[in-house]
């Protein structure tokens, strides 16, 4: 009997193939959207975590400013950090292997007829150590260059490609606004980060050069501190906080006017953004599922009216209310399950395209797929029940008379 009911439902669906397809379109779109969004979202989250791990989980970032500001936010009124702070952190805290100052601006780099907008960072050789970055060719800064604030620069691989193509950049002079700086080295290529930002799109200058000739102050925007391999990041963070409070003369009970972020924090913040986005878009998709359910209800009601005579015949030969109810309920469930199945396949295809474009891993979640499938069945039951009940309660005589 149950097998018969399924067969009957499939027959009815196939008889009106185009209409059936249009009916389930809402469910297809809803399910596909959920699957695609969640899959791509999960991929990006995985990628961010992988990137942060690659950047070094033992890296700390220190910024001036009140707490509860993200690492990307600009400094408030708090006193800035200095190169002396960097040296103090590196020499006085045993858990810190190396610390480096950085200050950055967006600028246009010009060479010959080529120009390219990029980020110019003032730092020193410790930057390369902290970020575990090798020079592909050329060299790092000489001490004399760092001390004197010489106009020497190390460029990322993208700058090399944009400004010099296949030419040799070493010794060439790049224009950065009013300064002309000589290229002394090229960093090894790193590729894109999780957000599609190109890590190789940067120019490094000695911090002193940057402070004197670009920023016009002695500030350090951001300090990177790499923690020793087997030391605890938590403890290193506490050490830095204690040291900076002392150096900045913050009395007990007063709040920090600087922030120390560890990469785990940054990672969870970034993945938090992805999660919020994913759930927001999923809510939109859920609405689409609901609309899809109403579409099913609508078409099932039409179907019941159209098939009134058929229902009359079935009742006349002895179908019970329950049997007719089951028939139409199974039909709407099968219909919405087919919609769900198409939606899952479509969603996975869209997700595959999405992860290609965003260059993140493809991470389909079987739980979400299962939930989506179950949810489409629920839609079928909920929105199919009312039309099915209407069919089951028809008066056989009236139904048989129906034209």
């Amino acid at each position, binding site marked *: *009997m149950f097998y018969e009911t399924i067969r009957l439902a499939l027959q009815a669906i196939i008889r009106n193939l185009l209409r059936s397809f249009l009916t389930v379109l809402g469910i297809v779109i809803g399910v596909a959207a959920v699957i695609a969004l969640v899959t791509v979202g999960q991929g990006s989250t995985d990628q961010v975590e992988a990137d942060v791990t690659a950047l070094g989980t033992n890296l700390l970032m220190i910024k001036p400013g009140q707490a509860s500001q993200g690492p990307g936010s600009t400094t408030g009124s708090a006193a800035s950090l200095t190169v002396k702070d960097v040296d103090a952190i590196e020499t006085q805290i045993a858990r810190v292997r190396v610390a480096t100052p950085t200050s950055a601006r967006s600028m246009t780099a010009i060479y010959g007829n080529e120009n390219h907008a990029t980020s110019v960072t003032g730092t020193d050789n410790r930057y390369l150590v902290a970020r575990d970055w090798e020079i592909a060719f050329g060299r790092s800064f000489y001490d004399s260059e760092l001390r004197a604030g010489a106009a020497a620069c190390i460029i990322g691989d993208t700058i090399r490609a944009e400004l010099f193509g296949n030419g040799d950049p070493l010794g060439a002079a790049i224009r950065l606004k009013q300064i002309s700086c000589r290229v002394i080295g090229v960093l090894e290529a790193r590729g894109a980060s999780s957000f599609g930002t190109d890590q190789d799109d940067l120019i490094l200058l000695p911090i002193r050069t940057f402070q004197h000739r670009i920023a016009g102050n002695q500030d350090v925007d951001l300090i990177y501190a790499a923690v020793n391999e087997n030391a605890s990041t938590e403890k290193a963070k506490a050490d830095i906080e204690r040291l900076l409070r002392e150096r900045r003369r913050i009395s007990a009970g007063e709040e920090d006017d600087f922030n120390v972020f560890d990469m785990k924090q940054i990672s969870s913040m970034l993945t938090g953004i992805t999660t919020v986005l994913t759930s927001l878009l999923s809510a939109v998709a859920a609405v689409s599922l609901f609309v899809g359910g109403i579409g099913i209800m609508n078409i099932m009601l039409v179907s019941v009216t159209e098939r009134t005579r058929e229902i*009359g*015949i079935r*009742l*006349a*030969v002895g*179908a*019970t*209310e329950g049997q007719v109810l089951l028939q139409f309920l199974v039909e709407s469930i099968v219909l919405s399950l087919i919609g769900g199945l198409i939606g899952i396949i479509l969603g996975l295809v869209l997700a595959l395209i999405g992860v290609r474009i965003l260059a993140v891993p493809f991470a389909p979640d079987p739980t979400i797929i299962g939930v989506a499938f179950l949810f489409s069945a629920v839609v079928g039951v909920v929105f199919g029940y009312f039309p099915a009940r209407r069919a089951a309660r028809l008066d056989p005589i009236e139904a048989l008379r129906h034209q």
Partner: protein
Amino acid sequence: MTDKVAGKATEDRQAAPLIHLEGVSKIYGQGEAKVYALRGIDLVIQSGEFAAIMGPSGSGKSTAMNIIGCLDTPTEGHYRFGGVEVGGLGRDQRALLRRNFLGFVFQGYNLLARTSALDNVELPLIYQGVPAAKRKSMALEALAKVGLAGRESHDPSQLSGGQQQRVAIARAIVTRPDVILADEPTGNLDSARGEEIMDLLTALNRDEGITIIMVTHEPDMAEYADRLIRFVDGRVESDVRNPVRN
């Protein structure tokens, strides 16, 4: 509960008449718009009879057939089928009576469209829960009995009116019912085709002992029955043995 209904019907078969209407009235509408379709019908039909019901249009023939066929219940009076008071049964219990003891043949055939003759005939067996293989053999047997062997895969649209009506008869007899209710079964057919249907019904009555109650407007068709009941204005006006057949 359902088995009890079926069981009781079987048990009481011997004692009570198969079909027993006692003061049955059917009233449609309320107040001013009240229509008396039946006005106190008394009627007994015994197992094995072949009864024809005639009468002018609107005299309540179809209304009576619907009540006898357990598709409807009387507004007043009692209808007992095999001793079971049908008025006291719910929708599903009446569905079970139809499924197990009654077969219907309609003027307009009422076959499922775009469904093969075989599937149409199997329909009541599906609701009886007969397994697929048995269902098929029973349906094929019924189709052969109405002379449609070899047509089982045809859709109603591929069959003539007479053939469609024979599929409907096959569907009515496939469950081996006690009664076949036929409301103007030859109404849409020419007289030759009509006579074929009547021969078929007569054979089923004579050879299988199936009780047949048939509504017709055509005296020629009524001749096949062995009892003639005449309705006028919701009442039984006359009820006679067929002088030709007996």
